[in-house]
């Protein structure tokens, strides 16, 4: 089957909405890194009384679908209350674009992640909410729900590929993942998992075991 971008992806890639920087933003967040292949920064202006996103802009170092998903996410978030904006999912973003090829689904995860992180940073700064980066199984699952298995475009938790999470006293983490050694997406999954686990500042080491 031919893998192609929907017309909406092309449209948003050609003429993305809300590209740029907000000077003195109320909050911002960067997800991904050049070493991982894509990076997205989201800037927010939020009305502190209504908690409505009054302006949102993004910058993307990434491919066509990365730029397109960032464009649609910023459209969806603009003018929304932060609680509503937090509810935007990566599946919703992909649907709004008329679908994404499975191998590109991770782009919409990155876009949603950047938006949510920026909101979290705002909540931390203005509402004094704590950012929970503690090393718990629950938080690890939350992070690994953002790791997409490129062959089918679904996260490894939903696919039940994540079989076991072990955390010892010294904060070493063992993850058992059901993926074959010769799977073409193995390196990508490992790379993504390691990137996600970097979110936990207190972590000592991560070991990925294939089961």
């Amino acid at each position, binding site marked *: 089957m031919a893998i192609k971008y929907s017309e909406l992806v092309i449209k948003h890639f050609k003429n993305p909405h809300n590209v740029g920087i907000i000077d003195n933003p109320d909050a911002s967040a960067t997800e991904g890194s050049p070493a991982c*292949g*894509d990076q997205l920064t989201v800037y927010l202006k939020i009305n502190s009384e209504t908690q409505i996103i009054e302006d949102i802009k993004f910058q993307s*170092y990434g491919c066509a679908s990365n730029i397109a998903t960032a464009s649609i996410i910023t459209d969806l978030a603009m003018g929304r209350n932060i609680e509503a904006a937090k509810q935007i999912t990566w599946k919703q973003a992909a649907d709004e674009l008329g679908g994404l090829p499975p191998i590109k689904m991770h782009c919409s995860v990155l876009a949603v992640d950047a938006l949510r992180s920026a909101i979290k940073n705002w909540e931390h700064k203005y509402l004094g909410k704590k950012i929970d980066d503690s090393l718990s199984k629950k938080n690890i699952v939350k992070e690994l729900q953002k790791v997409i298995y490129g062959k089918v475009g679904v996260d490894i938790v939903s696919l039940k590929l994540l079989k076991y999470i072990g955390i010892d006293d010294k904060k070493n983490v063992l993850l058992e993942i059901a993926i074959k050694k010769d799977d073409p997406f193995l390196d990508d999954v490992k790379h993504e998992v390691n990137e996600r686990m970097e979110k936990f500042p207190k972590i000592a080491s991560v070991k990925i075991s294939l089961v």
Partner: protein
Amino acid sequence: MSGKEVYLDSCKTSRLASEVLHAMMPYLTDKYWYPGSFTSIGTEIAEVIEQAQETVAHSMNAKSEEITFTSGGTDANNIAIQGILQANKEKGKHFICSTVSHPSVLAIFQGMEKRGFEGTYISANKDGYLNLDELEAAVRPDTILAAFTQVNHILGTIQNSKAIRNILDQSDHKVYLFMDSCEAYTKIPLDVEELGIDSLSISVHKFNGPKGMGILYVKKGTEIVPTQFGITRLYKLKPGAINVPGIVGTEKAVELAFTDFDKKIGRYRELQKLLYDEIMKRIPDAVLNGPPLGERSPAHLNVTFRYIEGEAIMMMLDFDNIHVETGSACSSQNLQPNYILMNTGRTHEESHGSVRFTLDRFVTKEDILKTVDALEKTAKELRRRSPLGKKEQ
């Protein structure tokens, strides 16, 4: 898409030359016959094939009987590599390949490793040249074959075949040298005798010939066994139906490529220099991948545009009907950056923003200038969107 098509991806495939199609047409229509003896139609076709073999052999200083037409580069690679390994397995089970070889060749060796052969993969330096001291150390008493890519399809590096041959000849036993010449043939001079090549493969659709055609050269005296079995009308290594129109088209494409060969190479060099100079002059933060212009294949350029991503560049150019290739992970089938760029010391980011331009006989000066115009516009726009790099442009 808009405007006249600009196609700078001959390393992937190329347009069939109209002269080639014309040459093939009679053999797709009225002259649909097979080669044979005595009958008028059989001998006519047999003579056409003989002529094609001679033309191809002459182009690389080989003998006519050393040429086999195959159904593509991969087919030729498989016949040669598997055939030589199988024929010589009593002498040893070791082969030498490299970490910067073409994936189609690596796939064969991975398959042969599962069948009991053992490989050493030698590395390359930042410009893609094989580390020959590693090759020297890799040759063992049981080494039977060394196989390399003559011109690297990602970096444009021309390997020093003579030096490789000399190293292999230091061994006290015969080590066969196979070259994947798919990107080299018609782009650099190729003399199998001078370079000491025992076997090589060529893909015809990369130089304006028909798809589904390959050329296999096997030096007379090479110990090789067939890997395919069937009715061997012409070639013991390639049984089965004979693609007469494909063979005729191959001959025509070879003839076109080698007529005024030096002039054609000179033209490639001019276009390559124009593309490189204009990119470097007009687009900041562009970095050449692979050897400098004078050293590399004349029909090949690979440039990283920093702070932006290759698939996005490729897509933007596609909107202007300009076609190139990228080493970006976003454009790969498993989301991994190109292994050749990574194995020659590029970072993920450098591989990510890499764009490859490969030329053929149809590329014009206007095409190059149109491409650089589009690249300049694309780089500016994508850098405006990017959080990386300087923002003054």
